[in-house]
């Protein structure tokens, strides 16, 4: 077994193990596993509609995953993606509603607003980390709540007059595409996926190919050495949070300008930001890994919606399977260890 083959095989085995344990749970609790997986598959890829919905769901996950992964690469744990996502969503809708402009200006402007908002929201924990060494985990958790309450307030008292949600944004600021929708039987697939894929590329290129990325990674690995080498550790910490927040904010625009076209008050968090953590970690904090992890996540989640109706299986089961897959991927050391033993035996 070649090393590369083993590297590809490992996550696949983790996936398989997750499915196997999921099956065991279903059998043990008296559900029909075959039906359940059939329904899961059908609900994700059974028709172009569902396929479109999967991609739609994948879009913000990619960006939220990139946001978490990017900060991680620079040694920071951004639990605040959720909050940055919310302010990005809010900003995109706000700009979408506030102006009447031709699409060619309006849409980019609204997207830009989300990026700036997310970046600014992440700038605060970045700055506090750099200036005062305040732990970013606490600050970002707090910033999540602040984002939640402020966005609710702004929706209700600034953008609207006491309403729970904003009006729909005009077409000129929308990512929605009648063409994509018609391709997928009226799914909510929108152009955001293109942006998300571009962002994967940007993250990869920025980190791996540019001098800036060289600095960011160096700071992530060894701040002292980075300082010695003449890099500004503080600047790079702030920058990494800002870029991370920008991705997260853009993820918000995917909802604001794409999926929903408005923003509503929220009683609690959306969960996109927290799923972003899982996506990033599942994807080993690399751009390509995040891309595939988001697809897995999105497909499982959208597919799961079909399970109660088609197979009578609670869709929480999918959360269990996702969790198990994350577990097994995380524990891939042990899988690798097994594979190595097997290949050694083969060699003998």
């Amino acid at each position, binding site marked *: 077994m070649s090393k590369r083959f083993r590297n590809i095989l490992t996550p696949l085995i983790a996936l398989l193990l997750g499915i196997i344990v999921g099956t065991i749970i279903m059998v043990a609790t008296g559900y029909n596993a075959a039906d359940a997986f*059939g329904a899961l*598959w*059908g*609900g994700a*890829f*059974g*028709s172009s*509609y*569902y396929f479109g*919905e999967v991609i*739609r*769901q994948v879009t913000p996950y990619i960006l939220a995953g990139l946001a978490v992964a990017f900060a991680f690469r620079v040694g920071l744990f951004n639990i605040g993606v959720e909050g940055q996502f919310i302010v990005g969503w809010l900003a995109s809708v706000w700009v979408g509603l506030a102006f009447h402009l031709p699409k060619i200006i309006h849409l980019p402007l609204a997207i830009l607003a989300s990026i700036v908002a997310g970046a600014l929201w992440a700038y605060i924990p970045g700055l506090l980390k750099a200036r005062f060494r305040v732990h970013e985990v606490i600050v970002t958790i707090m910033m999540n709540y602040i984002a939640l*309450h402020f966005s*609710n307030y702004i929706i*209700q008292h600034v953008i609207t007059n*006491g*309403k*729970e*949600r904003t009006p*729909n944004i005009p077409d000129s600021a929308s990512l929605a595409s009648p063409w994509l929708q018609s391709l997928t*039987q*009226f799914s*909510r697939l929108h152009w955001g996926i293109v942006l998300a894929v571009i962002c994967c590329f940007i993250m990869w290129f920025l980190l791996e190919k540019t001098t800036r990325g060289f600095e960011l990674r160096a700071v992530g690995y060894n701040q002292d050495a980075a300082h010695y080498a003449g890099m500004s550790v503080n600047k790079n910490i702030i920058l990494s949070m800002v870029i991370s927040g920008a991705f997260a904010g853009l993820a918000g625009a995917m*909802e604001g300008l794409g*999926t*929903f*076209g*408005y923003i*509503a*008050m929220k*009683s*609690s968090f*959306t*969960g*996109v930001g927290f799923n972003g953590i899982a996506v990033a970690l599942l994807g080993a904090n690399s751009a390509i890994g995040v891309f595939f992890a988001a697809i897995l996540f999105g497909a499982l*989640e*959208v597919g*799961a*919606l*079909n399970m*109660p*109706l088609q197979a*009578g299986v609670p*869709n929480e089961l999918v959360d269990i399977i996702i969790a198990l897959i994350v577990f097994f991927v995380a524990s891939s050391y042990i899988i690798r260890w097994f594979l190595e033993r097997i290949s050694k035996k083969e060699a003998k």
Partner: protein
Amino acid sequence: ACGKATDNTKNNTTGGNKGNTFSVGMVTDVGGIDDKSFNQSAWKGLQEFGKDNNMQKGKGGYDYLQSQSDADYATNLNTLSRQGFSLVYGIGFMMQNDVDKIAKQQPKSHFAIIDAEVKEPNVASVLFKENEGSFLAGIAAGMTTKSNKIGFIGGMESAVIERFEAGFVAGVKAANPNATVDIQYAASFTDAAKGQAIASRMYSSGDDVIFAAAGATGNGLFKEARDRKSKNPDQAIWAIGVDSDQSPEGVVTAGGKQTNVVITSSMKRVDNAVKDLSTKAKNGNFPGGKTTTYGLAEDGVGLAPINPDITNKADIEKAVSDWSGKIKSGSLKVPATRAELKTFSAK
């Protein structure tokens, strides 16, 4: 599996009620069908409707889908309509936009939306006069309070909760002009801890009746009320429930005997509305494009039975029935907003 699923949807995308089997499905928000609130009530109505019409749970009969996030509403609504359900409910104003869009895309399918209006010919909109039910709750509160201080805990500020608030305050004023209402919003429908903290503050500052229109946040109110009651059985403190009859949440053992701290609940009979609307649809009278408002007169809102532990239970029941009469007859218009409340006078 792939091919099979595609076939399914192809056959069913036309949707609508062409065959003679009528089926009905609903999509809940994240709360699910036992949120002790309107999802639960809606599901109850659907089940009763199913039973009355010898339908089975599942495809071709009646069923529901629970959403895991706001993004799932559209997918779920679509799924149900694609699976051939003759009528698909969106439960909650949050689904307004999605119902609107999907109704346009699938003009032959029938949809209904609860708590919001969608002006499409294939959508029936259902609104409730929550203010009328909570007006009666206000009457009960105003007649129960000894301290003349009453609390109102709102979930998140919204038009629906504002109707609860305005109606409640109007009811209190009508029954007891000396009473004041202490209003606080928790900014959440899910935060029991906050509900409890607010309730604690209210009881501590002398409020003896508290009404929570706040979803699961209200759990905190009942917890606080039960705790206080069991600690101090002589203390006369009360809570009022919302949406469904929440009296089970008020049961508490105090001073060795079982009692209940819930006076009554301001009920929102989504079940009645769902049954009513489903029956109409089944009989071919689907009120597409129309908004039906269910109030006291239509049995769409109401008051749960008054707690027998209340000493002046009979008086309250009498007052409630008097006021209901006035409301049903149209001689009393219960305020639905704070603005309307300002000019309201109960004569």
